[in-house]
């Protein structure tokens, strides 16, 4: 039975990490009704950040966390004002965001090839110290456990922000109804810009741990990650903050079960899971009824 327990536990670790991978995408959709198709590319940039901090400066990826959070938050604010208000004035922002952010993703990917080259990069997995961790009788690499713990902490921090701070309350008001939020005096643009920055920063933070969980760092890493993030977010339900955690765990556990018992089909899994869940519950696992958005 060791195999099944290993798969379940490893799946949980992966799931907690992948919840963080997808959290920013969900947050941005929830507030702005925008599909950030460049989500994975911000994760890729975050991964390169951690790579260079480690190889040039000798910094542990843990130090990259606060640094990248500030940098990407600062990057997200001007990017928001450059793209989103204009997009929202067009007729169909939700559909057009698909194409707009695909364009942005192309730009980021091309610039990343110029800046970093096409070689695959990695961070040695013993960077945190080499000892594997014992969990309920199974052993896992320390990097996996740290990634999972960090994923859980990230989601928890987001939750505390959304439900415990006044900025978070304003953010949730916009999620529920942007017009009513504006009437009560909330500055929709400013909160949206902040949310956009946080969403992108969360992607970058997830990128710091991607060398241990996703694989080698390379400029075209983003597309696959964006697709998986979509699957996770939709499985949980779009625009639902806790849904990402549920979606991540469902994805992680079923991925590890597939890799253990039917490895060649595991790449197909997130997409089949996504369609199956959408057909049974069109609003995702936590969604209520059929969604109009």
């Amino acid at each position, binding site marked *: 039975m060791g195999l099944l327990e290993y798969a379940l536990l490893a799946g949980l670790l992966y799931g907690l990490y992948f919840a963080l991978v997808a959290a920013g995408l969900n947050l941005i*959709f929830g507030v702005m009704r925008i*599909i950030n198709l460049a989500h994975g590319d911000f994760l890729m940039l975050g991964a390169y950040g951690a790579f260079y901090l480690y190889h040039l400066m000798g910094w542990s990826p843990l130090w990259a966390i606060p640094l990248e959070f500030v940098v990407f938050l600062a990057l997200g604010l001007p990017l928001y004002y450059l*793209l989103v208000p*204009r*997009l929202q004035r*067009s*007729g169909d922002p*939700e*559909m*057009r965001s*698909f*194409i*707009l952010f*695909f*364009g*942005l*993703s*192309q*730009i*980021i*990917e*091309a*610039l990343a*090839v*110029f800046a970093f080259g096409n070689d695959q990069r990695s961070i040695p997995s013993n960077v945190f110290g080499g000892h594997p961790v014992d969990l309920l009788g199974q052993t896992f690499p320390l990097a996996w456990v740290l990634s999972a713990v960090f994923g859980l902490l990230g989601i928890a921090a987001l939750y505390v922000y959304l439900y415990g701070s006044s900025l978070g309350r304003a953010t949730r008001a916009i999620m529920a109804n942007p017009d009513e939020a504006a009437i009560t005096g909330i500055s929709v643009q400013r909160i949206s810009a902040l949310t956009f920055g946080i969403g992108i920063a969360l992607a970058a933070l997830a990128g710091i741990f991607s060398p241990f969980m996703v694989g080698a760092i390379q400029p075209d890493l983003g*597309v696959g990650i964006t*697709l998986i993030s*979509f*699957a996770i977010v*939709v499985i949980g339900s*779009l625009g639902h903050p806790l849904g990402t955690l549920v979606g991540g765990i469902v994805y992680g556990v079923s991925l590890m079960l597939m890799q253990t018992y039917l490895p*060649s*089909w595991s*790449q*197909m899994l*997130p*997409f*089949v899971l*996504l*369609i199956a869940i*959408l*057909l049974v519950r*069109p609003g995702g696992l936590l969604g209520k009824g*059929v*969604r*109009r*958005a």
Partner: protein
Amino acid sequence: MLKRWLPSLAILAVTGIGFALVPLAYSNQFLLFNMMMYMALAQGLNIIYGYTGYLPFGYVGFFGAGAYGAAMAISFWHWPVLLAVLGGGLVAVLFGLLLTPLFRLSGAYFSIANLAAAEALFYLVANPHMTALTQGPYGINLPQVYDPNFAYGTMLAILLFAVAASAYLRRSRFGLALAAIREDTVSASMAGIDVVRARAVAWLLSAFIAGLAGATYGWYISVFYPETVFALSITVFTIVFVLFGGQGTVLGPLIGTLLLYGAYNVIGISNPQYFQLAYGILIVVLVLFLPAGLASLLRRRRATDER
């Protein structure tokens, strides 16, 4: 009556005569073939996105289904090639029928689910366990039917069919019904339009066109891999061509493909990063500043003239 259809007939004639004669003066047949293919795909996408408002981000799934359907008909059952192309189109229609439940979803949910469906089909076809049926990741080889000139002619016929279908949908009663559904589904159904049926017809027609194009593409290049015919870039190119030209018009997708696919070949495939960068910037600028495409410029001018 004739006057109403005259512009469409003119577009059909120019497209047909153009692609029939240009090869006499210009020797890069592969480029012309690809341009016709993208024009056909753009019209197919126009039928579902431009006329009904559903954006299938996994449109390439039908293209790949067509390519593999035709290839399997040729290698297993030795069908004559034109019949196999038709079979490829029908495989795409079958895939489209399978996906009709996705119409319960709307907006982004539909686009994402359709993308997921195309990815799932890709991983199904490319799976090493499917080697007996699809050659899995090792690709398809069709030397027995290799005939680029014949395939070129077939693609031209498919393109003309796609243009004609798009023109019919734009000017006919059925097309008006689709437009009504796109603008306001509830009112349209109250006006007696069978929403589900109308949408399904447009959807399957659009899938059929992509399947035919995919089948003929596979035949033309005769050696291909799952990555070739399920490349997400095919969907995205097509969407951008349609948007650039203007969705919901007959001429828009053609002009959009002509200009942008032409530009693609001028900027050069030799330097993919420069191309990718230019392309990304073009998309961003396009969505932000010209959301209804080139065709909207023409229409706006005409509207001001009349006033």
